[in-house]
């Protein structure tokens, strides 16, 4: 669905860094993607291949690392990981509190890129 704008954004950032670093070819791109994202690795690669055709990043491999969903308890400040797919109401393992805020799990970060 929204792979295309996301992949276009990734390509723009990659090409910007490639230009300022005298890069001949981008070999791989290391992404950190939150577990709340619905984008599948295989589709991200396919769409990236499509948008990067004819650029320095054509053929680059996306290395995708998933970042877990972490909540911070509003009562005691303890951070803990949750599994959003199990549908269980998460309670803070330290104090049992049920009010939390999201610390991580939404990100789309380009960590680094391997280049020639």
């Amino acid at each position: 669905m929204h792979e295309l704008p996301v992949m276009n954004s990734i390509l723009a950032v990659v090409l910007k860094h490639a230009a300022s670093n005298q890069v001949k070819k981008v070999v791989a791109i290391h992404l950190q993607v939150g577990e709340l994202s619905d984008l599948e690795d295989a589709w991200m690669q396919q769409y990236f291949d499509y948008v990067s055709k004819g650029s320095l990043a054509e053929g680059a491999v996306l290395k995708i690392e998933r970042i877990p969903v972490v909540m911070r308890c509003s009562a005691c400040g303890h951070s803990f990981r949750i599994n959003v797919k199990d549908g269980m109401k998460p309670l803070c393992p330290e104090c049992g509190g049920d009010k939390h805020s999201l610390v991580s799990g939404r990100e789309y970060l380009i960590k680094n890129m391997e280049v020639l």
Partner: protein
Amino acid sequence: MNDAVRIIEVKEDILADNALMAKNLNAELTASKTFLMNLMASPGAGKTTTLLATLALIGKHLKVGVMEADIDSKVDAEKIAAAGTEAIQIKTGGFCHMDATMVKTGLDAMDSPRFDLVILENVGNLVCPAEFETGAHLNAMILSIPEGDDKPLKYPLMFSVCQVLLVNKMDYLPLSDFNLDVFRERVRAINPDMTIFEISAKTGEGVDAWAQWLTARVKSVIG
């Protein structure tokens, strides 16, 4: 040596540009005393019908404008305008969501400072609109009974980015195996602070309470 692979540290958030744009847009809206609500739901959840029922109640207290986003049609804006509320249609041209830049273009076109409340009816789906901040003061979603009580498990991001949830088509509940208790528990698992209203846009059930809540929310920002 020339052909050795080297690593360039990038460390850039690719949604950062949009997030910054959204933050600035939100500040501009607040300064011009206009409240922006981003309404999201699946196709057929009853977004336009819920809007019409809501507008009938809040239109007396607030000057409201509607921004309809659709991939390619203007039927929704025509329905809203026929009911007496100013509406513009944004054709996203294949885009599955609105981003902050597109929202800003729409707000400028409708001269948004004239309004107390602008409602953005986002493109109908529970996936893409959740990823892109729009600058809204309030993210609202509708989930209708026929869609099923498992949706928080399938679309956790949408349920996590919204502050209010309208459970629509409550009149279908007796015909359905939708379990409201299980559903509420699944929503709270992802978003403990979600405010939930059970409504039927068709019969009007529960729309009053939602409209009052929304009016109070708008007034808390625009004064």
